[in-house]
């Protein structure tokens, strides 16, 4: 499973989540690509679009 597939699973369960295309994903506190293969016990973080600076 990839973060993209995981996000799609979350969308099925939680109303109001939209497409992830504008968001970022981190695996175990490292920024990652949406198609990175996940391993067991990975911690996945989804970020809304950022606007720092």
């Amino acid at each position, binding site marked *: 499973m990839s973060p993209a597939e995981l996000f799609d699973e979350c969308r099925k369960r939680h109303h109001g989540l939209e497409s992830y295309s*504008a968001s970022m994903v981190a695996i175990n506190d490292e920024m990652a690509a949406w198609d990175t293969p996940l391993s067991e016990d990975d911690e996945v*973080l989804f970020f809304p679009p950022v*606007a720092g*600076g």
Partner: protein
Amino acid sequence: MNTFEISSSTIDLEAFRQQLIDPACGAYVQFDGWVRDHNEGQQVLQLEYEVYEPLAVKEGQRIIAEAVERFGVNNACAVHRAGLMELTEVAVVVGVSSPHRGEAFDACRYIIDQAKMRLPIWKKEYYASGAAEWVNCQRCAHAV
């Protein structure tokens, strides 16, 4: 000296500059991002930055390392604020020192541009109207 930090208190700009002083360098470029009193037609009174710090620090250090590698500058540092901020306060500072000015300008620009796109930092604006809103990332909005 290459560092990236998140600070929840006022940035000491003189101390920041001191750490970049290097006798091998003839150029120092610094960018300050200030809290501005308007955005998209609204009068802004205050800003708040929410930072996911473990990742912001790691990704910020990576951006600094990329700039040093890519432009060959001697030193690059940046500090980004977290928390509530007043008008004219320094929200972010980037400093680069190098033997000559060209690569220092380029590296400074690279760091602030990448920081805005990649750091997990969110900005909330408080308006004169009493409303408050999380600001969307423009580049991200266009990517949708």
